[in-house]
């Protein structure tokens, strides 16, 4: 019991023995107490009650202070003081103010999830199925704004989309810009534009391969690069996949054009793994367009035979003359007017845009960062999924467009073209200027001609009216002649200009 001091009540004997209050003694009669009448006291009952209440209140206050003291002392870290103060604050506010963003909250430590309820179905948006969107990033600052506009336009309910980004070995401001853009997304005034869980994961793998197009796509660098990419993808996925995800969508940041409904479009097929066709637009002089992602293919016998001849750690990569596999590629089978719902079975997939059921990753299929059946990363992912009897499908006529990044040769060629274009523009500008000058320096002959004509007519009319002497018509004719000579003069420089153009 807590120590407190209470005055010892001085109880006076209340019931004197041996007589009634009226003073008459009684003999052996039955005593009923009290024997004496006592007035109810001069202090009104209300005040008496108040006083005792005050006393109890005082004791309670002391106890409360002691409690408060112990509460404040209990936490050891300085940051925690706020927590417990706020919990005592909630006492005063009777918990009404607790929702005002203070640190007053309770913890839930146990989570229960039934994985059979997040299997992924064809109409996930109706069943509130969550999609994890995984985006690996490296020096991608330039593409971010484009990516966010795509994200904004997705028609899948945004609150069901969880975003996970892996920023690795970036030297530019990818991380800063990404954070800024994401925070803006979550602070959007429209609640329907808010996304679900957003994670930015930083991990440096110490990549030695440069990210520019030339070194990225060089043959020698491929195996190492693909294994590193695979590691990055696995780190991202393992850190971001939660028990509540039904789907996982892998998307490269540098996709330029894709349908807003791509998630629903791919989901509708209800396949374990599905990829669209990936092309890229090209400048006119390169043919306008080109298949981009050659990692989506069907296995061929040639490739299997080739695989048997390679050593355990070798990685077959597509699109290089060194490994001629003669595989049917998804990219080359595109018909711009074909049915976008046509499906094609695949063995290897490209990583630009993959929609997969989350259970695929839960069962252990991942992006091999080692040579798995002579493949790594996304191609190995496709192979491993096939190994586990999962469906791997490509859509040859459903196309998204990857951004065009010119190669070094292309850049040289484009510089050459740019110079030519500039020279041509310069020439045209000069031509226009010259034409202008000519126009200004020689006045237009046609106007003069008209004027003279009118003048002549007037003169003729006057002649007819006045029947003037023969000198006047001569004057008019001479004026006519002048106009003719003038118009000839105008024609002369024009011919010179044509000549000049040919020379240019």
């Amino acid at each position, binding site marked *: 019991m*807590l120590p*407190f001091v*209470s*005055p010892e009540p001085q*109880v006076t004997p209340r019931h004197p023995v041996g007589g009634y209050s009226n003073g008459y003694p009684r003999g052996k009669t039955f005593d009923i107490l009290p024997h004496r009448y*006592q*007035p109810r*006291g*001069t*202090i009104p009952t209300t005040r008496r009650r108040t006083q*005792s209440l005050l006393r109890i209140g005082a*004791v*309670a206050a002391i*106890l409360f202070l002691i*409690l408060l003291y112990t509460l404040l002392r209990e*936490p050891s870290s300085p940051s*925690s*003081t706020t*927590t417990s103060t706020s*919990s005592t604050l*909630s*006492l005063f506010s009777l918990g009404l103010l607790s*929702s005002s963003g203070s640190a*007053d909250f*309770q*913890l*839930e*430590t*146990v*989570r229960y*999830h039934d*994985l*059979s309820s997040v299997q992924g179905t064809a109409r996930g948006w109706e069943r509130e199925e969550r999609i994890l969107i995984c985006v690996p990033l490296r020096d991608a600052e330039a593409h971010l704004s484009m990516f966010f506009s795509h994200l904004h336009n997705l028609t899948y309910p945004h609150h069901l989309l969880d975003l996970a980004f892996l920023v690795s070995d970036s030297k530019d401001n990818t991380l800063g810009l990404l*954070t800024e853009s994401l925070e803006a997304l*979550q602070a959007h005034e429209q609640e329907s534009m*808010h996304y*679900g*869980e*957003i*994670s*930015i*994961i*930083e991990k*440096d793998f110490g990549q030695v391969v440069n990210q520019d197009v030339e070194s990225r796509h060089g043959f020698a660098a491929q195996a190492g690069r693909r294994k590193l990419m695979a*590691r990055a993808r*696995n780190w991202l996925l*393992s*850190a*971001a*996949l*939660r028990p509540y995800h039904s789907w996982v969508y892998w998307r490269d940041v540098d996709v330029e054009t894709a349908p807003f409904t791509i998630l629903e479009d791919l989901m509708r097929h209800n396949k374990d793994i599905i990829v669209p066709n990936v092309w890229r637009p090209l400048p006119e002089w390169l043919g306008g367009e080109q298949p981009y992602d050659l990692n989506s293919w069907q296995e061929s016998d040639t490739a299997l035979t080739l695989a048997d001849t390679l050593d355990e750690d070798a990685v077959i990569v597509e699109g290089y003359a060194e490994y001629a596999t003669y595989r049917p590629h998804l990219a080359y089978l595109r018909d711009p007017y074909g049915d976008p719902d046509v499906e094609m079975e695949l063995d290897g997939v490209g990583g630009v845009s993959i929609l997969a059921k989350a259970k695929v990753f*839960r*069962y*252990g299929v*991942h992006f*091999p*960062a*080692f*040579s798995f059946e002579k493949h790594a990363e996304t191609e190995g992912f496709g192979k491993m999924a096939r*190994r586990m009897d999962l469906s791997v499908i490509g859509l040859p006529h459903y196309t998204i467009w990857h951004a065009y990044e010119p190669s070094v040769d292309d850049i040289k060629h484009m510089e050459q073209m740019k110079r030519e274009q500039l020279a041509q523009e310069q020439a045209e500008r000069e031509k226009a200027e010259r034409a202008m000058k000519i126009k200004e320096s020689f006045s237009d002959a046609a106007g003069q001609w008209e004027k003279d004509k009118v003048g002549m007519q007037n003169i003729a009319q006057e002649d007819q009216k006045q029947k003037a002497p023969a000198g006047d018509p001569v004057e008019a004719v001479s004026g006519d002649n002048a106009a003719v000579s003038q118009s000839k003069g105008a024609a002369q420089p024009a011919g010179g200009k044509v000549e000049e153009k040919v020379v240019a």
Partner: protein
Amino acid sequence: MARPMGSVRLKKANPVTLAIGAALCLFILYFLLGPATSDFSASRKATAASHPLSPPTSPFRKSTGGKLAAPPVAHYNLNNVTTTPTPLENSENVLLLTPMARFYPEYWDNIMRLDYPHELITLGFILPKTREGNDAMRELQKRIAKTQQQGPEKDRFKSIIILREDIDPPLVSQDEKERHKMKNQKVRRSAMAKARNSLLFSTLGPSTSWVLWLDADVVETPPTIIQDLAQHDQGVLAPNCYQRFWNEETKAMDERPYDFNNWQDSPIALELAQKMSPDDILVEGYSEMATYRTLMAYMAQEDGRLHEEMPLDGVGGAALLVKADVHRDGAMFPAFAFYNLIETEGFAKMSKRLGWQPFGLPNYKVYHYNE
């Protein structure tokens, strides 16, 4: 005002009344402050997630019933997640994963005895959706509620994740004889591998440093097992799994080797594998298929050094400490024949392919339940 009978009013204020009043005040105060004080300490709250959509390896704020704000943009720097031989000093998070078909109270008592700080341990369970699984689930939840809600705070784990499998149960019986029949091995272990992977990849999250695999039927480990195994600083490390039994001959408790999946390869086994189709699996512990592998189960020495290491080519899942990085690199439990190996043995092979050599501790023992 005169109080001729001033003392009269004092007769009510006797100490008992005051004591009762004070007790009542305390009682009320307790209930007003109760939920907050009986909840977690502030240091734990500081590391909690603010939204239910968050890594399950951390607890989250209970919803107060109001409308939830949009989840925050969360940063995780995995460069700062260390995995060192001294996990205790670096406050490294451990994820203890257990696929559970049956609940053994001894298992729970054992993990309660772990002396690694419980606030750094996250438990993950996956249970099949069968009647047996439901029973285990009920038992498990009882124990969890007791620990997490009523237990002292130092006993409470950081967070607990319970998953139910989405895999159709391959076998009706978990009976030991049926379970260990050779022809059932591939189907059974393939389902087991899927369950392990589902558990692993749904719970790993961005802050885990170590993953400790502990089977539900491992009922006795040294309480310092996490620190002991971590000090070896190996990517994959397996202690030796034994079983205690009543020896009729010596009339005393004795122990015998139990888990035969920790082994070093033999030329004969490699030759056997060479002849097999790539979809077949080579399993250990069956006389029909003698592999002559070096089994760690038989390597324990009475007077051997406790912390002696040996490299392994196959590991068992009874108890296994894995650096989270190994799993993040992609090492998982193949549910298909991977180099003619499956599940935990395939995992060892895959770790090796990724550059993490598994090791075993022949003299460091954990004990399996005796059925």
